[in-house]
């Protein structure tokens, strides 16, 4: 296995999507790190072979989207084993997952579905994070989701829930600033207060992405399909003032632009980080 490429503690990376792979491989642009959705590389695809080549030159972060740590049933051991096998091949600098569930009763819904924030779900989620960290033999980062509904059952504010997961399990927090902005808009809470509630020492990465306004209703949809919105850049600056230097990722998964646009967004994140 080749030596792992080094990474700076304030590196800015981009989400790696298939259409950009060849160009990155050919031009080797300056990018702090690459992040991929783990599930897209669990099959033995040609894309996996290309990723394994790129990891010689770029630190790679694995971002899981389907471990379904919030499911009210046992963790899927097969999926965990596939994630572990991928980690052994890629040797990522980070492995992250979500505060969400996406599968129940053997059916996978391909979405990051919201949890009821109760003491019972907190215990369950922490148990799953501990089981996953033990099975993978490494620390996870857990990302706050963007949400469009809240349950009547919920008793714990999301930032408090995230904080308690980190405290109980030792996992880190992947702070998705766009998700905070989107959920704060959708439910009318103060995004700065959310940032203030997160434990500085647990923050391991920041995500930035685009969103759009839903048609006909006062809802923002996190779509990873456009440039980072101005208010999210402002919230990012506030996050850096609170957290200090943090690895930051530009995510762009739908309506993919030219690679240059993605790199422009990364340069802007570097500039914001430089000022703060």
């Amino acid at each position, binding site marked *: 296995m080749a030596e792992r490429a080094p990474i700076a503690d304030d590196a800015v990376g981009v989400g790696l999507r298939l259409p950009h792979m060849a160009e990155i491989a050919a031009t080797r642009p300056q990018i702090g790190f690459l992040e991929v959705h783990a599930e897209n590389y669990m099959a*033995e695809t*040609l894309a996996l*072979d290309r990723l394994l080549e790129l990891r010689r030159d770029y630190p790679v972060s694995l971002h899981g989207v389907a471990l379904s740590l919030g499911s009210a049933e046992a963790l899927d051991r097969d999926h965990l084993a596939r994630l572990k096998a991928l980690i052994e091949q890629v040797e990522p600098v980070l492995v992250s997952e979500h505060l969400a569930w996406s599968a129940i009763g053997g059916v996978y*819904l*391909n979405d990051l579905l919201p949890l009821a924030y*109760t003491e019972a779900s907190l215990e369950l989620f922490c148990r799953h994070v501990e089981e996953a960290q033990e099975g993978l033999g490494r620390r996870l980062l857990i990302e706050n989701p963007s949400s469009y509904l809240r349950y*009547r059952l919920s008793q714990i504010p999301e930032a408090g829930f995230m904080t308690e997961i980190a405290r109980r399990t030792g996992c880190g927090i992947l702070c998705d600033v766009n998700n905070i902005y989107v959920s704060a808009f959708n439910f009318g809470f103060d995004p700065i207060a959310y940032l203030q509630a997160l434990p500085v020492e647990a923050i391991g990465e920041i995500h930035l992405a685009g969103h759009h306004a839903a048609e006909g*209703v006062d809802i923002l949809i996190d779509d990873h399909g456009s440039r980072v919105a101005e208010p999210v850049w402002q919230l990012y600056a506030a996050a850096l003032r609170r957290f200090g230097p943090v690895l930051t990722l530009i995510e762009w998964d739908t309506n993919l632009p030219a690679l240059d646009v993605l790199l422009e967004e990364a340069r802007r994140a570097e500039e914001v980080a430089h000022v703060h």
Partner: protein
Amino acid sequence: MCTDVSTLLELQVRLRRAILIGDTAEIVDAILGDGLDPAARVGIYHHHAFATLGEALQGTFPVVCRLVDKRFFAYAAHEYLREHPPHSRCLAEYGADFPEFLAGFAPCQGLPYLADVARFEWALNIAATVREATPLQAQTLAAIPLEDSAYVAFRLQPSLSYFASPWPVDAIWQANKADEVPEIDLTSGGTSLEIHRADGAVVWRRLDLGTFAFRTALADGLVLAAAMSAAILKDSGFDLVTALRQVFADGLAVGFVVSPERQNLG
């Protein structure tokens, strides 16, 4: 309010039902309105799940989509998703039974070749998602005693699919990859295809009936004598030595066992 895991499970099962079936009656009371109809909030997740899973199917079956147009494909995908939601969490592995679904989907009956084009695209997908194994060298067989040679069963490349159709599906598929679709003669006859990954690319080719029967039998795990019998039924001039040499030349065999099970000959 006190909750336990069974309450959470019930909540998740109800949301799953609402997302898949669109029936929100059992979940809306559990959701805060926050200024919007709770059913509309569930609808956001329903829409996302169906849109992204539909896109995943479209990525795996691009020519099927082109043959029926995007709107009809979205409709067919929607019906399929309701009946066959994904079990694997890797979307590249979703859609194995989509061809069978299309074969029985009444609105598609006017396109009798559609399900076979879907089968072909699924075989291409398998080849694209399974890495090549190291081929077995022909000289490895020299160690097998002559009296055992009829009972050798091979393990073939895991990316391989064999697939026969009464329609020229490869020609239909190829033509529909281009912007301008040339005329296809649907009466030009069927195809017997071999699809696999070779040298880092997905490849396929048409096989003659004897070779197709022989290789399909090997892929099904039949011993050499049984595979030869299957081939001779299709081609009385079938030559085992040449056929076997070609299997090795194509790098298809990756392992073998000597089977004592003579009933495999049947």
